[in-house]
Every structure is written in C-alpha cells, then in structure tokens.
C-alpha cells in the first residue's frame, strides 16, 4: 500500500508525459499534413492565377471563342455552364432529396431497399464517362433529344444524384431522435413531423450535399464531350424571356452549347502559349464560379439555420 502510494505519483507523471508527447507528435504530423495539402493547393491555384490573371478582362467574359488567342473569350462557355448547372440543380436536388427522404424515412427495410441502398452507394464511384455513354445511348439516340443543354444538365444530374441521396440520408440520420419523438408525442402525424421538424433541421446538411454534388458537376468534361457538346460556338442559346407573350420560353433547353471545362481542355492542348494563358484564365474563372456557388450555399445555410432556431 505504502509502496504504491510512493510509486503512484512518479508512475502517473510518467504516463502523463508519455501521453503528452504522443499528443505533440500527432499534432505535429497533423499540422505537417495540413501544410503539405494546403501548400499543394495554394501552389496549383497561384500558378493558375499567375498564368491567367492577365487575361481576365471584361472582354474575355463577353467574347466568343476565336482562332486569335488575344480576342478569344468564354462568353458561350460560361453561359453554357450556368444554364447546364441550372438544369442539373433543378433535376438532381428535388429527385435526390426525395429519394433520400423516402429511403430513410418511409421505405420498409427489406432485401429490395438494401439492394437499392448498396447500388446508390456504388453509383457514386462510377466513372463519369460511363454516365456520358449512358446519356449518349439513351437521351441522345434512343429518345432522340439531341446534343442539347437539357441533355447536358440531365447527365450531370444523374452523375451527382448518388451524392445528393447519400448526403440527404446522412443529414436525416443526424437529426436528434428526441426531436422526432417529441413531435410524435404531441400528436403530429408522419407528414407533419417530416415537413415541420425533420426536414428543416436536416436542411443545412442536405444543402451541403447538393453543393458538393454541383461542385463536382461543374468541372466535368468527359460526359459532356461524350454526349457531343461543342467546342467552337459563337452564338448564344435563345433568350428565355421575351417581350411578347408568353414571355418565357424554354427553347434554350434544346440549343447546342459548350462549357468552361471543354474550352479549357481545348486551349491547354493548343501549340500557342497564348492559348495556355486563356486556359489558365478559364480555370481561374471556373474556380470563381464554383466558389460563388459555394458562397451562395453557405449564405443559404446560414439563413436557414436562423429560421430553424426561432
């Protein structure tokens, strides 16, 4: 007894020191890894900015592609990317959230839903070119939809659907069980619980999933090239709003298009160095568009959090 009483402080101190040392080592490794990763990212982005910043002018944003690097711009590309992303978001978010909700809240647990669950997770890892081939065979040829903005949006929507579904389910699982039970406890039915309690508190997580998906979609080249998107296109889709009735039209969904990553891909492999600058500038703009999209989602999430609290 007296021996342990005498030995204990030294033993404890040794253990504490040992654990502290382990903490320090782990912390150092963590910081090191962080620096390596951030350094890599920073190098890449700054290299892109150094190469391309000089080319980012209002003219670059308002000019069509051209054989002359100095006059070439990304007007058709950024409008194409924006329109395709709108179609993707409008299709993928409601479908993905709906599917996630059903699988998590309504679907019975049986072999069928288990199989669907496994398939959804696996779909997230399918190479994007496969989606392009699917869209080429199904949308473009079987359904005869042609190489249009609508098809471009649909293929990217399919591509990110698994991401949105998985994120939705994760977000729903993270809702505290107490919230659900309390709601049922005061007599709410399933729809009321879902619509008024679960969905609002899961919304930030769902939104994060949607934005992760859209950020992946915006940089995709392979499936878009596969379905037959163009590279040189010097006119814009028809205007969706007009002065005469019915004021809105959806002709733009059926027009040919190009997107930012395709322009970048084309310019990067050209022989002239001036085109490489254009490619870098396009890369910076694409990063900017992604950041803008993310910023918007973060703002939305922030606003939604406030509404949930009150």
């Amino acid at each position: 007894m007296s021996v342990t009483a005498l030995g204990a402080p030294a033993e404890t101190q040794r253990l504490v020191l040992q654990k502290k040392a382990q903490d320090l080592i782990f912390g150092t490794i963590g910081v090191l890894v962080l620096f390596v990763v951030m350094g890599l990212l920073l190098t890449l982005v700054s290299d892109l900015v150094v190469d391309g910043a000089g080319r980012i002018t209002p003219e670059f944003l308002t000019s069509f592609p051209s054989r002359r690097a100095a006059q070439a711009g990304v007007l058709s590309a950024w409008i194409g990317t924006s329109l395709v992303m709108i179609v993707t978001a409008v299709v993928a978010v409601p479908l993905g959230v709906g599917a996630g909700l059903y699988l998590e809240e309504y679907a019975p647990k049986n072999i069928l839903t288990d199989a669907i669950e496994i398939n959804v997770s696996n779909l997230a890892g399918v190479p994007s070119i496969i989606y392009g081939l699917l869209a080429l065979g199904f949308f473009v040829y079987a359904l005869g939809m042609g190489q249009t903005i609508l098809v471009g949006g649909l293929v990217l929507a399919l591509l990110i659907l698994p991401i949105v579904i998985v994120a939705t389910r994760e977000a729903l699982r993270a809702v505290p069980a107490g919230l659900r039970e309390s709601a049922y406890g005061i007599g709410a039915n399933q729809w009321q619980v879902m619509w008024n309690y679960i969905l609002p508190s899961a919304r930030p997580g769902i939104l994060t999933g949607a934005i992760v998906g859209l950020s992946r979609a915006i940089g995709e080249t392979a499936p878009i090239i596969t379905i037959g998107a163009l590279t040189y296109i010097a006119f814009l889709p028809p205007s969706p709003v007009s002065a005469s009735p019915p004021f809105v039209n959806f002709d733009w969904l059926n027009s040919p298009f190009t997107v930012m990553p395709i322009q970048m891909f084309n310019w990067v492999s050209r022989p002239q160095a001036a085109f490489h600058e254009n490619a870098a500038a396009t890369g910076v703009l694409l990063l900017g568009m992604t950041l803008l999209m993310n910023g918007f989602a973060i703002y939305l999430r922030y606003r939604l959090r406030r509404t949930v609290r009150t």
Partner: protein
Amino acid sequence: MRVTLLIGVAAAALALAACGDNPAKPGAAAPAVLLIDGSSTVYPISEALGEEFQNTSGARVTVGLSGTGGGFKKLCRGEIDIAGASRPIKAEEAKACADAGIEVIELPVALDALAVVVSPQNTFADCMTVDELKTLWQPSAQGKISNWSQVRAGFPAEPVKLFGAGTDSGTFDYFTKAINGEEGASRGDYTATEDDNVTINGVSGDADALGYLGLAYLTENAGKVKAVQIRQADGSCVGPSAATARNASYQPLSRPLFYYVSKKSADERPHVAAFIKFAFDPTHAEPLVSEVGYVPLPTAAYPLAIAKFEARRTGSFFDGGSKVGVTAEDLVADAAQK
C-alpha cells in the same frame, strides 16, 4: 423556401443570358447553322475558317471535338455536315456511311508535317533515316532498343527516352504507317500523350529524349526543341517546315488533313456549299491555315478541290487504306480527272 430561391437564381441567370443574347441576334429568324465536328488536329483550321465565314456570311458555324472516329460516326448518322479528319476514312467507316445512305466527298483541307524532335542539347541526331527511326519505334524494339548506340554506330551509349502520340490519335496512325510500315504498329514502352505540349516539355530538357509531334508545336516551341532532318530517297536531308511540306519534299512524314463533306448536306443545305467555296478560296484559306500553324495546300490545288466538290465526286482516294507520300494534288487531281 429553397425552391423559391432556386427559381430566383434560375431567373437571374436566365435574365443574364438574355442580356447577352440580344446584341448577337441581328435577325428574328434563326440563321442556318453549319455543323462541323471531328479531329482535334483539324479543329483549329475549322475554328479559323468557321469564324471568318460566320463574320462574312451571317450563317452560324459550330465546331465540335469528337475526334476523327467520332466525327465519321456523326457524319454517317447525318448529324453533321462536315467531318474533319487527320487520316483517311477507313473501309468499315465508309461502309457504315454507305449503309446509312450517306455519301461523302473527300477534300484535303490543309497539310501537316510530323516533326521528329530532340532537345537542343542533343548534338548528334541531326539527320536520321526512316530505317533508323523504324529501329527505334517498331514493335520488336520494345524492351530491346533502349540505347542511342543501338540506333546507329557512333551515337553515344546513352539511354534513349521516347515520347509519342497516344494510340487514339491520327498522328499515331500516320507515324506508325509511315515509319513502321503498318498502321498502329508501335513499341509500347514510351511516354504516350494526346497533348503534344507534354512531348515538348519532356524532350526540351533531356538531351537523350526523342519525340514526334505536329509541325505547329515545333514552330511555337522553336527554342525548346530541335527538329531532326529526315534523309530522303535521294540522300539529301530535309527538315520539317511549311515550305518542305507544301512542296512534298519532306517525306514520308508530310500528311494531308481532310474534310469529309456529306453529299446530302451539300445538296440540300446551301450554306454548306457556300462554306466550301469560302474555305477553298486561296485568298481566305492560305492566310487562315497558316495563321493557326498548318500548311496551306499548293495554290493550284484549291480550284481543283472546288471542282471536285462541285462535281460531287464521292468516295475515298485511299479505298479504306492509308497511303504515305500522297500529295494534295494527287487527292484532288485524281478525282477531277476520273
């Protein structure tokens, strides 16, 4: 809430697109669109010709980047008017076209030279024979020919590093046909890339490296890499340049690039015929083709190409195979006389 916001964003973006659209739309009726697709090698030429044609005629032009094979598929489905190609149409592609009832008119649109390049630090490889290049590149060289001294006695005993085109490209097809005698036959243990800039970067800093690429990449990177001259049948050494490609003295690595025009489009869509007249008018074609780094056809070949088109002479000079050392005059003269 989220839905209304999404709609809001959609509306805002649409409004933006609408603003951009107005100045680009002179007439109310949608103008005709000329559809070009195909080889990425021919793309810069189509872009230049299309851009100028659009500026002068008011017709709209779009150019895709599906690759030579993808372009033929689309042409034979009747989806496009013109396919750019960096190699002649293959027998099975021609058959697919014929089965679909699409006849094609083969026109050489420009010339290109494939340059064999080494680093400026390389002092020994000034002029090489086709046989030496074959020693280096043929399939049986794989794993065996790894040293410059094996290529020619007198070359240093340094390991050779090879850079070449990816197997999907027309450049690869043509190089293997011209050097190794069989299309697609090549050693596999080299750095293969679809982007010739990779070859430039790989070769420029390495005195032991050798690669091949399109002439435009050599011209744009004159200080970084050096062209190897090719010993001709008469014993002279000729380097790749616009002049030697145009007068066909740089053999066997000069090659024509093609336009395959759908006869149906040519007959039914007036702006297709207008575009061909524009694209094969030497006053437009020569400066535009040169500007994007390729070699214009010999001036005399342009009217012959137009004549071939006007006569709607379909079919391929190559009969589904690939020939080396064909000049632009061969391609158009042959058809004009037939």
